[in-house]
């Protein structure tokens, strides 16, 4: 074997280093964007075969999806579906990176708002406008999955991010379940407090769940429906009168929350409600299954903290259309992934999912047999506002604006809290 000098060896190693440097200096994003970032591709046609990865964040629904997968495979023998489940936080933070190369997520779900927008801009969605599935949905609930003229995703779940109420405690206290204005809401809280229970259990220590109350508090206070988008764009300000009024209403709520509410995580907040120590849990209907699992036996209703001061509220409640289903444009098994989405969107299967998970769905003609869903179904027809916090596309802005409410609960003046939030919004403009 020929011998080489140390200098030659160093040259070889140096070349390797330079290679690495050159590789590192490839333009960011240059080798990415499966399907391009140029817009959605049409839904694929072809054989319903192959191994489909279904990426989502609802670990609590795994068994239900397993059963649906079994039924889907029974109908389509050449296909296999596996669930790739992340925690919701991880999915929010890394979902795009995980799904973009289609290593996972031939079919996938996204959160409404920033994540849906990012997936859309990355060109990961295929066009579902002409798919078989789209016809099964209630038209008005599909808007959250639209981008311009395209129907990129199908919002599968309808949730009500409003406080859940223990109706037994309400009856015992003689408290009203549907207060018409803010004073009536506070009077209701007063009655509940007088009966010896905590009126509202609020997970102020959990940014994600604690922030859901914001949807209710802002709905009838803001001058326009796209208020959060306008705050982010600088057209409306947190220091505006209407926003300060809302923060003052948060201040009104403070005495009716459990002690040290800003340090309470979501699980203890659920426990206070499930054990009958708190009359309301200020998260949303998406926690129905969780509180039932914690042993709550009482009937559950929804209560809208109506912030109207004259009884002429524009909205009677709030809802969110989320868990937006999509087909990955980079998938090698697009036809099978699309067939899986079609399957989930059939009323019978959507009904099975809804009743087993205690989640309403946006699919038409679903028969709700779950007692909680049946009781809450009238809310599907009420005049509800689409949850506003998901209009924020910048998560720093969203967190800062919502944090102003938490700050007020912990004693900061509404004006100071609003200024602190607006400072961050201004920095992000």
């Amino acid at each position, binding site marked *: 074997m020929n011998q080489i000098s*140390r200098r030659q060896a160093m040259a070889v190693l140096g070349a390797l280093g330079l290679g690495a440097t050159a590789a590192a200096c490839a333009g960011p994003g240059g080798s990415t964007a499966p399907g391009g970032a140029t817009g959605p591709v049409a839904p694929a046609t072809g054989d319903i075969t192959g191994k489909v990865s279904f990426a989502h964040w609802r670990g609590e629904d795994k068994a239900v999806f397993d059963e649906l997968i079994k039924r889907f495979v029974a109908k389509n023998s050449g296909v296999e579906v596996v669930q790739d489940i992340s925690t919701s936080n991880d999915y929010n*933070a890394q979902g795009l*990176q995980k799904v973009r190369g289609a290593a996972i997520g031939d079919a996938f779900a996204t959160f409404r708002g920033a994540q849906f927008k*990012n997936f859309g801009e990355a060109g990961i969605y295929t066009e579902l406008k002409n798919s078989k599935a789209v016809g099964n949905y209630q038209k008005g609930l599909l808007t959250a999955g639209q981008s311009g003229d395209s129907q990129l995703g199908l919002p599968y779940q309808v949730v009500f991010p409003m406080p859940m109420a223990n109706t037994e405690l309400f009856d015992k206290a003689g408290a009203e379940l549907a207060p018409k204005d803010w004073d009536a809401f506070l009077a209701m809280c007063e009655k509940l407090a007088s009966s010896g229970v905590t009126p509202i259990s609020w997970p102020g220590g959990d940014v994600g769940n604690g922030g859901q109350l914001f949807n209710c508090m802002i709905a009838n206070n803001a001058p326009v429906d796209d208020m959060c988008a306008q705050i982010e764009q600088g057209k409306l300000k947190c220091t505006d009168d209407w926003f300060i009024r809302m923060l003052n209403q948060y201040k009104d709520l403070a005495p009716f929350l459990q002690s040290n509410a800003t340090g309470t995580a979501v699980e*203890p907040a659920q426990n206070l409600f499930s054990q009958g120590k708190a009359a309301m849990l200020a998260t949303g209907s998406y926690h129905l299954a969780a509180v039932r699992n914690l042993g709550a036996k009482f009937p559950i209703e929804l209560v809208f903290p109506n912030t109207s001061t004259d009884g002429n509220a524009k909205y009677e409640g709030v809802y969110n259309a989320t868990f937006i289903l999509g087909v990955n444009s980079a998938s090698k098994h697009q036809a099978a992934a699309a067939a899986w989405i079609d399957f989930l969107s059939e009323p019978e299967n959507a009904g099975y999912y809804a009743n087993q998970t205690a989640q309403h769905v946006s699919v038409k003609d679903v028969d709700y047999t779950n007692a909680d869903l049946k009781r809450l179904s009238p809310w599907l027809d009420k005049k509800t506002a689409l949850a506003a916090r998901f209009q924020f596309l910048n998560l720093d802005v969203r967190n800062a604006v919502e944090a102003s409410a*938490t700050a007020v609960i912990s004693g900061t003046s509404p004006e100071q809290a609003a200024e602190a939030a607006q400072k961050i919004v201004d920095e992000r403009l």
Partner: protein
Amino acid sequence: MSTHTGMAAKRKAPESSAEAATKKRRSPTRVNPALYLFPLPAVAVIAFFLVMPTLQAFQYAVTDWNGFSAAFNYVGVDNFIRAFTKDSLFTNALTNNLKFVLLVVIAQTAFSLLLGLLLTKNSRGSILLRALFFFPTILSSVSVAFIWKFIYDPNFGLANSALGAVGLGGLQGPYLGDNNQALYWVAVTQVWFHAGQMMVVYIAGLQSIPRELYEAAEMDGANKWQQFKSITWPFVAPATSIVVAYTTVQSFKAFDLILGIAGNPPKSSLDILSTRIYSTFANSEFGYAAAQSIIFMAMIALVTWLQRRLLRLTPKGE
């Protein structure tokens, strides 16, 4: 078969001028090239998993890349300027982080030294206590975070329940719910988590001190404090240097503990640099997050270097 004497004679034989010239031309370090294959896997791993990502971070840091788009702009040092002048969330995280590091370094160093001093003797009780104090170290940081999250819970938590049970209900607090206190309570958790590990470093240092020195000091009438000052401290000073450096880096990067205990995203009073960088990545600002990572890296390097300069703690006589 050659003998040692024969070989030595061979080595000492004068070289011809031609041989000498050839030797001069040929490098004395020539080795079998196959030997250079051995470091290649390590070089490749370092190049791909360390050099390349680091260089990429530098490259992304001067762009406005959002992490997925093919389109991006070079923005020079704007991201670095933005971090210090137009981003109160970043400067807040930086302040929190420095405060956290300072708190933890002081408390953890003092506490682990105290543990080391109390548990140096190899008695059965000491060994049991050492195991107990070391135990948290073997837990995963996520488990630790969740355990302490529930200890601090104001309604169901162990801390408030225990205070209530012994009639000290007036001292019950919101812990993580109070923005002015939250960071201190997480610092307590961090110290609890890692003090046992640092205690082991101190015990190793303390056990290396010759007993004769203490015996001589006692004969000279030195009290315990004088013995600590003149014998113990000089011997454990190098260990302190290690403990401080390790604790600093650890506290700078307390990402998993903060995220586990405070949730994602943590509220602003608990936001530190690593969690801020994570939030910035999650907010699809890859270029800016890369710039923050570089600032973070530079800061750890600077603080570690400063510590090495300021804490040249070596035993006397060395």
